[in-house]
């Protein structure tokens, strides 16, 4: 097996460059590559294009990259919980492309899967359809959407092995598997890194072929946005 292990986050992100297109797995603050984001914050980067369903919150996750003005453009489906994101968007400081969540997931999946374009019903008749080809199939209207790829994709898994195979946990899976496949260089951080052969091949969510670098993450905060409990 090909060994994909690198020492740590700093080594993993060493060749990330300004103007690059980056993808970040995660939904809300669940399943985000915390270690890689921290390492990126230490670097002198600007004019990044970031593809991520959300943009973290003001003081955590990609929100910190927005605060540091490292990001030229965000491609996301939801701004919701991030006041700084919404402010930069409304003021025009930040270029934002908002995409329906399922279209975002499928465009990223298409990027990894070598499908340059596909038709989807989401957004027909809305401003999302502007400038896009519309076509009818079996009596229903669909939009033509293009694939999305990245120079670097950052994903976070629960377990991983040295061959780059990944297993996610709970709803922290979300966008991570598709993004792993859509990065020219995919960097995976895991809570537990094990030798190749220790994961059950039948239980792997992301095969190692998609992962170029893997490292054992540390000090996970795993913040909760909406702690909701039963009485």
């Amino acid at each position, binding site marked *: 097996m090909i060994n994909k292990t690198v020492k740590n986050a700093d080594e993993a992100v060493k060749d990330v460059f300004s103007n690059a297109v980056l993808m970040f797995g995660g939904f809300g603050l669940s399943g985000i590559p915390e270690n890689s984001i921290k390492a990126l914050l230490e670097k002198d980067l600007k004019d990044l294009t970031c593809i991520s369903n959300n943009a973290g919150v003001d003081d955590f996750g990609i929100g910190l990259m927005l605060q540091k003005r490292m990001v030229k453009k965000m491609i996301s*489906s939801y701004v919701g919980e991030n006041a700084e994101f919404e402010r930069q968007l409304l003021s025009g400081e930040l270029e934002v492309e908002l995409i*329906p969540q399922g279209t975002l997931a499928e465009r990223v999946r298409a990027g990894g899967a070598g499908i340059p374009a596909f038709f989807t019903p989401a957004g027909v008749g*809305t401003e999302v359809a502007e400038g896009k080809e519309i076509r009818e199939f079996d009596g229903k209207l669909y939009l033509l959407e293009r694939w999305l790829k990245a120079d670097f994709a950052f994903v976070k898994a629960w377990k991983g092995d040295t061959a780059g195979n990944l297993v996610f946990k709970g709803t922290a899976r979300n966008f991570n598997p598709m993004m792993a496949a859509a990065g020219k260089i995919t960097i995976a951080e895991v809570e537990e890194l094990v030798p190749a052969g220790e994961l059950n091949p039948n239980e792997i969510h992301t095969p190692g072929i998609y992962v170029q670098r893997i490292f054992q993450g540390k000090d996970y905060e795993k913040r909760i946005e909406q702690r909701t409990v039963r009485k």
Partner: protein
Amino acid sequence: MLNKDQIAQRIAKEVKNGQYINLGIGIPTLVANYIPDDLEVVLQSENGLLGIGPFPTEDKVDPDLINAGKQTITMTKGSALFSSAESFAMIRGGHVQLTILGAMEVSENGDIANWKIPGKMVKGMGGAMDLVASADNIIVAMQHCSKDGQSKLLKECSLPITGIRCVKKIVTDLAVLDVLPEGGFKLLERAPGVSVEEIQSKTEGKLVVEGEIPEMTFEV
């Protein structure tokens, strides 16, 4: 007038045995509390779960297990986890049969607006555009009027829309209404103490009233 819980309670009566259902953020999430125990239904969370259970007890809170509103949740027996691509494959493929979501505006032909107020507020569409473009049955939970008394049931949406000709039923604080295939809001039920005239005066779009309109009843 219905409060939020009563709107949720009324919507829960629309749920049928054996359905897979996606509940949006806000009032729709409350619907889960009122689905009768004898119905077997499965709640889908578009971030990758079939089988949403109740909120966790304090000791069971897990940051790796949240719903689409980023709330901590639990899983029911027989649940399944998957990626966002698989989740929207389910939604787009018509496997999720009922979608319940909130709205800022609905038009009389079933258009819905719920993601943006130009220049003032942008939440983003999240999964809503996929949901409304895909599910066969879409029920909207909303307030009948804005805080300053403007009707939100309109001839045409004034805000950027989320989807066209998709809403089938609306439950507001004042009424239950069907969206007719030929256009128009058909009044089905009135909230307790609310008259047809009041509903008429607060509905900008075409309101269709036929025969007696019953008042809703709630078992306590």
